[in-house]
Structures are given as structure tokens and as C-alpha cells.
């Protein structure tokens, strides 16, 4: 059951001379849902960008050979009148040109009606665009999906359903999931592993074990659980 999909050892990233990530080590098993949490600017998105090879890093990132990755970015900046339809956007995928059938399947897997194929992507709402991005990411049947949650722009109800959707996709497609989340209820409900980042790695393990009040106040610098904060300060 526990086949390792990804192994990260001593990952370190510098951007413009400043260390934005250090000492990050974790592994992901097939079927895992790993949630990455941490305050703003803690290097969560940078970790994803290192995983897809978009930034230089030191240390080791090892995917099991042949593992395909799907990536859902936090946001993409589109001009509203960008002349490109959803269908054409799907066809930009490098892995073999998807046919009509694949495009319809991809749309229905994220619960969008077939009529979305001919809509220009610039005209979609934030929630619709996010679904389209998820559909895009799973188009080549990846085994590992990286999902970067938008900080704003999608409402709470929309956010709930996107996680329901990811959960469903994970069951149907035997997906392994790494998600960046800002919402601890999401982490408790959908993740079986959690990685806490604040430039350095603060914790890694099962949510119930590592998301203790002490751990959280260390991670978020005392924003949550004031009395625990005083306590943990004495310890450090």
C-alpha cells in the first residue's frame, strides 16, 4: 500500500539572497493527502514551485520514476478578453492533444456542463476558473496533484465544494494529493498528513498528532490560543 511517490530531503531555496525555505524534509506515500500550512509568506507556494522545477533549490527532490504531476496554481492573471476558449486551453496540455471526448470528460469530472468548452476563459468566474484549472491538471491522468488554494477570490461555499470535488477525484482516480491550505478545518477534514512551514519546517505528521495548540502557536506566532502562547514562550 505504502509506495513512496515523493521524497524531499533538506530542501533549501534562496530568492534574491534571502532564504525562503530551509531544512524541509518529508515524504509522500501513494494515496496520501498532504496539507501544507503556514502563515503568509512562509514559503508554501515556493515549495510547490520547487517541486515543479520553477525555482532553483538545494537539497533533494525525488519523485518515483514515471510519476506524472498535475499542478493547480493559486491564480492565473487573465485579461478578460483573452481570445481563448476553455477547449483551446485544454489543448495546450503537452500530453497528447485531448480529443472532444476527453474534454467533455474533464469538464464533467469537475462538474461543469459541456457548454463550458466554448466559453472564453477570461469570462469565467473565479470559482469556475479554478475548476477549469483542476480539470486541466488532471487531464493527463497524473498520479500526484498539487493544489494551491487561492487566498481570496473564491467564496467559502465555493471553497467547500472544491475540496469535496478534490476528495471525490482522489477516490475515483487513485490520486495522491498535496494541497496548500489556509483553512485548518480543511486540513482536519481532508488531510491525513500535514506539513507546517514557516520558512523552516515546523512539523510533519498526522494532523491530530502535530496540530496541537503549542504547535500551532509556534507556527503562527501566537495568533491562535493566547494562553498557550505564553506557555510556549517559556519553553523556547
Amino acid at each position, binding site marked *: 500500500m505504502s509506495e513512496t511517490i515523493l521524497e524531499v530531503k533538506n530542501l533549501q531555496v534562496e530568492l534574491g539572497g534571502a532564504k525562503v525555505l530551509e531544512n524541509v524534509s518529508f515524504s509522500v506515500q501513494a494515496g496520501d493527502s498532504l496539507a501544507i500550512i503556514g502563515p503568509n509568506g512562509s514559503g508554501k507556494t515556493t515549495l510547490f*514551485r520547487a517541486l*515543479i*522545477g*520553477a525555482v532553483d533549490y538545494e537539497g533533494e527532490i525525488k519523485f518515483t520514476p514515471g510519476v506524472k*504531476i*498535475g*499542478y493547480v*496554481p493559486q491564480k*492565473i492573471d*487573465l485579461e478578460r*478578453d*483573452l*481570445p*481563448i*476558449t476553455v477547449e*483551446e*486551453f485544454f*489543448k*495546450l*496540455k*503537452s*500530453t497528447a492533444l485531448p480529443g472532444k471526448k476527453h474534454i467533455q470528460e474533464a469538464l464533467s469530472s469537475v462538474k461543469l456542463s459541456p457548454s463550458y468548452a*466554448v466559453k*472564453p476563459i477570461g469570462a469565467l468566474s473565479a470559482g469556475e476558473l479554478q475548476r477549469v484549472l483542476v480539470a*486541466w491538471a488532471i487531464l493527463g491522468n497524473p498520479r500526484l496533484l498539487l493544489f494551491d488554494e487561492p487566498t481570496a477570490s473564491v467564496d467559502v461555499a465555493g471553497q467547500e465544494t472544491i475540496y469535496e470535488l478534490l476528495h471525490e477525484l482522489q477516490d475515483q482516480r487513485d490520486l495522491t494529493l498535496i494541497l496548500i491550505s489556509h483553512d485548518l478545518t480543511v486540513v482536519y477534514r481532508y488531510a491525513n498528513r500535514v506539513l507546517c512551514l514557516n520558512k523552516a519546517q515546523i512539523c510533519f505528521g498526522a494532523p491530530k498528532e502535530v496540530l496541537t495548540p503549542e504547535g500551532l502557536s509556534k507556527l503562527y506566532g501566537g495568533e491562535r490560543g493566547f494562553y498557550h502562547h505564553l506557555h510556549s514562550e517559556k519553553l523556547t
Partner: protein
Amino acid sequence: MTELGLTQILIAGAFIAAAGGLLGSFALLRRMALVGDALSHVALPGIALGLLFNFNVLLGSVAFLVAGTLGIWLVEHKTKLPVDTVVGVFFTLSLAAGALLTPEEEILEALFGDISKLSVFDFWWALALSATIIYLLLHFSRRFVLALISTDLSRSEGFHPHRLELLFLLLFAFAVAVGIKFAGALLMGSLIIIPAATSRNLTVSMGSYLFMSAFLGVAGAILGIFGARFYGFSPGPLFVLVLGAFFLASIFFRRK
């Protein structure tokens, strides 16, 4: 050198305009519309040297544009300045050098171009370069579009946005080099901007946007060349005016 007949001039004009229109459709999406205008000046020293030492000005402009483009790409990468800023530096320097070098009596032709004075050599070069530009743009179109939507998505697919950027700039340089023959350094930018801007007013899908840009360029070229022949004007400026008319008309047909 023998002068070419109307048919050849029309063919060359159509090819050049198709390449320029197609390239322009990508340039507009990348917000590089005015880069073509600026780049065209980078060719001026090459044109001037060609005129002075009697070699083909197309070769001179290609050489200067390719060198200039590589320079722009390297400086952009090194300094992280926006591409239009770097292009701005290069283009004003080239303009200054071109102004010093260009013989006074030839300056009009260098600035405005004249496709009706095409030599056989120019004809084949224009055809070969334009066809290459069109082929490469279409071949890499999916990668170019993905990179402009999101460089991270492009990287996650294993593409190299930085290399694509260089390829695009080089294609841009070639398009400008052949376009100068048609519309001259001053008006070259119109070939890149106007058909694509018009097409953007009219289309919602990428396929129709690219096709329409190229098509409008070709239509403008043919009308411009015929009109010039008929009324005895220079084809370049007339071509630009025809494109301008298309653009004005498109405003009223703008999709919702």
C-alpha cells in the same frame, strides 16, 4: 538586378504581412505590441551599412536585429528589467547610430521602405523568412500561449519559458527584418500591431484570432499594393492606411 512584376510583389507582400500579422497576434497577448516598432529601429544601422557599402540591406537588417535581440534577451535576463525598457535602450542607440550612418539621399527609403523595388534576391529571402516564421509560430503556438497564460503552468508541463522567450524574440526580429522591406522602419510596427488589434476586436477563440490576424494582414497588403500601383503612391504607407481602415471598422463590430 531585375525588378519584379506585380504578381511577385503581391506574393511577397502577402507572405510578409501574414508572418507579421501572425507574430503580432502573439505579441499583443504578451503586451509587446510596441516592441516591433522599437525593434525596427535596431535594423537601421544595418540598413545604413548596406546602403554605404552596397550589400543587400535585408542582410544588414537581419544581422543587426539578431545581434540586437540576443543583446536584449541577455540584458533582460541579467537585469530583470522589463523587456520594453531594455528594447528602449537598444532602439534609441541604434537609431542614433543609424542616423549618423545613413546617406542622406537614401534616408527616406530606409525609413519608409518600398516593396515595389524588390530584387529577385529579396523576393526569395522574404518568402523563405516569412514561411519559416509562420511555420515556427504555428508549431510552437501552444507553448507560446501556455507560457503567456502562466509561466508556472508552462514549467509544470516541462517547457522552458525562458527559451521560448528567446525563440519568440528571434522570430520577432526576423519578422521586423522582412517587414522593413515592405513598410520601412517607421511604419513596420503597424504590420505587427494593427491586424492583431483588429482581429482581437472580432474574435473569441485562439484559432480564429490567429487566422484573422494573418488574413487581415494579407488583405491589407494586397489592397495596399494594388492601390499604390493604381494611384502611383508608395505601397507601404497605403498598406498601413488600409489596415487602419479595417481597425476602425472593427470597432463597430466588436464582440460583447
